[in-house]
């Protein structure tokens, strides 16, 4: 053992480095570039009941240190995912976390139930995509009762460890985190993208048809880190930290703040080797600092 193993609820990972939903497709897209067996876990693109076309172009806009996206959950849909995408991922020696996104509470139930008998390791319940319509009032993850209800039902129907993925676009994220913990989530993924926008100066129009898009990348890292801090203070279940992690130091900051695992998102686009570099970096960090286990670093921040 190399001391990298961590526990996320009942889920044991060989190392704390995951790839974030939406940035890694269904894994197969990256298999030619990196060895997927090295990863702690792969979180799939969020799956919806029916295939989703996604939003019109443009969907991406690079900003200073960040990337705006408005993909709109384009995915193959539940049936094709189960028939074609999941079997591919099962061949690898890594944890497979299936991300789901519903348009209503009952769709989350339907997704969780349909996936119940499939082989994978955990369910990420994405209640925080900023690029699709949730309710008239906003995102599911901006409403503690809806968050509770969706997570509660996902836990009941899926029989898999449930991870709730939260939005940072809320005054007090700890309220939602607590609701998800109470509903039976085994971990909280912190965070989805930040609401943001851009204007095309040639046309004086918003770049994105929805106006709002999600900002990710290094630009949001300090904000994402603070959300991890807030959630960690509020709940006892593990936190998975993500938001602009590009290297070992970024990952360490999240872990020391309290993340039991981290996920690389837009970093995969910049350099697909970043997750593996972080894993190797952690190995060296433990050795250089004479630490036996990475888990001893989790939440080791002092003030």
């Amino acid at each position, binding site marked *: 053992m190399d001391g990298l193993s961590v526990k996320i609820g009942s889920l044991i990972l060989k190392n704390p480095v995951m790839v974030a939903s*939406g*940035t*890694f*497709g*269904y894994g197969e*897209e*990256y298999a*030619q*570039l990196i060895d997927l067996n090295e990863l702690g876990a792969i979180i799939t*693109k969020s799956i919806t009941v029916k295939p989703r*076309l*996604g939003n*019109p*172009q*443009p*969907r*991406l*806009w*690079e900003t200073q240190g960040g*990337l705006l*996206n408005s*993909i709109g959950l*384009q*995915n193959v849909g539940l049936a094709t995912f189960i028939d074609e995408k999941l079997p591919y991922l099962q061949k690898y020696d890594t944890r497979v976390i299936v991300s789901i996104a519903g348009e209503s509470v009952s769709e989350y139930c339907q997704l969780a139930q349909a996936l119940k008998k499939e082989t994978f390791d955990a369910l990420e319940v994405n209640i925080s995509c900023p690029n699709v319509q949730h309710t008239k009032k906003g995102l599911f993850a901006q409403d503690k009762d809806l968050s509770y209800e969706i997570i509660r039902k996902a836990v009941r129907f899926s029989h898999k460890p449930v991870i709730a993925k939260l939005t940072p676009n809320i005054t007090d994220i700890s309220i939602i985190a607590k609701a998800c913990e109470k509903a039976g989530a085994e971990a909280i993924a912190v965070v989805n993208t930040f609401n943001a926008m851009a204007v095309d100066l040639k046309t004086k129009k918003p770049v994105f048809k929805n106006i709002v898009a999600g900002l990710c990348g290094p630009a949001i890292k300090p904000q994402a880190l603070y959300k991890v801090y807030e959630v960690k203070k509020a709940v006892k279940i593990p936190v998975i930290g993500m938001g602009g992690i590009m290297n070992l130091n970024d990952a360490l900051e999240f872990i020391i703040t309290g993340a039991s695992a981290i996920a690389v998102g*837009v970093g*995969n*686009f*910049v*350099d*697909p080797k970043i997750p593996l570099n972080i894993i190797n970096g952690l190995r060296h960090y433990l050795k250089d600092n004479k630490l036996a286990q990475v888990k001893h670093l989790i939440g080791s921040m002092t003030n």
Partner: protein
Amino acid sequence: MRRPLSIHLVKGSHLEIIYKVVGRGTEKLAQVKVQEKIDVIGPLGHGYALTAGKTILVGGGTGIASLAFLAATLKNKYNQVPIVLIGARNKDELLCSEAFEKIGCTVKVATDDGSQGFHGLVTELFREMAAIFSTHPNMVYACGPLPMLRELVRLCRHFRIPCEVSLEEHMGCGVGACMGCVVKGTKGEYLRVCKDGPVFNANEVVL
């Protein structure tokens, strides 16, 4: 973020790329010094489907750059050189005509201001030529700005000439994972420019 760039020519173990400095990314790339190492992923996606017989290449702006490697490949494979139409704003912005002549292609130039060759758009030049073809080409290959591709695809449909277009989009991952660089397909679905393209048959996409 990485930048998607096409291969201009392959010379032994060297790849040539031609790009225009349009923003911070390409500006940084332009500052790279000789012998400096850069990280490259590729080649990615689908290239042009090679076709024997008479072919026409139509390029506008920096889009013309990607067609030289195609011309060289067609020549090597079928011992037949394509006719090349190059569009540019003016003669100073005209690119690659020598590269195509070196391959042995017949090159025709169109400039917006008439400073060299045909006075007008490259698609207008194509339309004039297509109207008097003795034999229709087996394929038109095109790369350039979207309005040029749109008009060219329209003309190819009119003259019933098969056409392939190479598209540009802002890209995220480059490997088909992020669904960021899409184009609307004719069946209503969104196709990934990085993975399903960047070269598409004109019948597959709505431009």
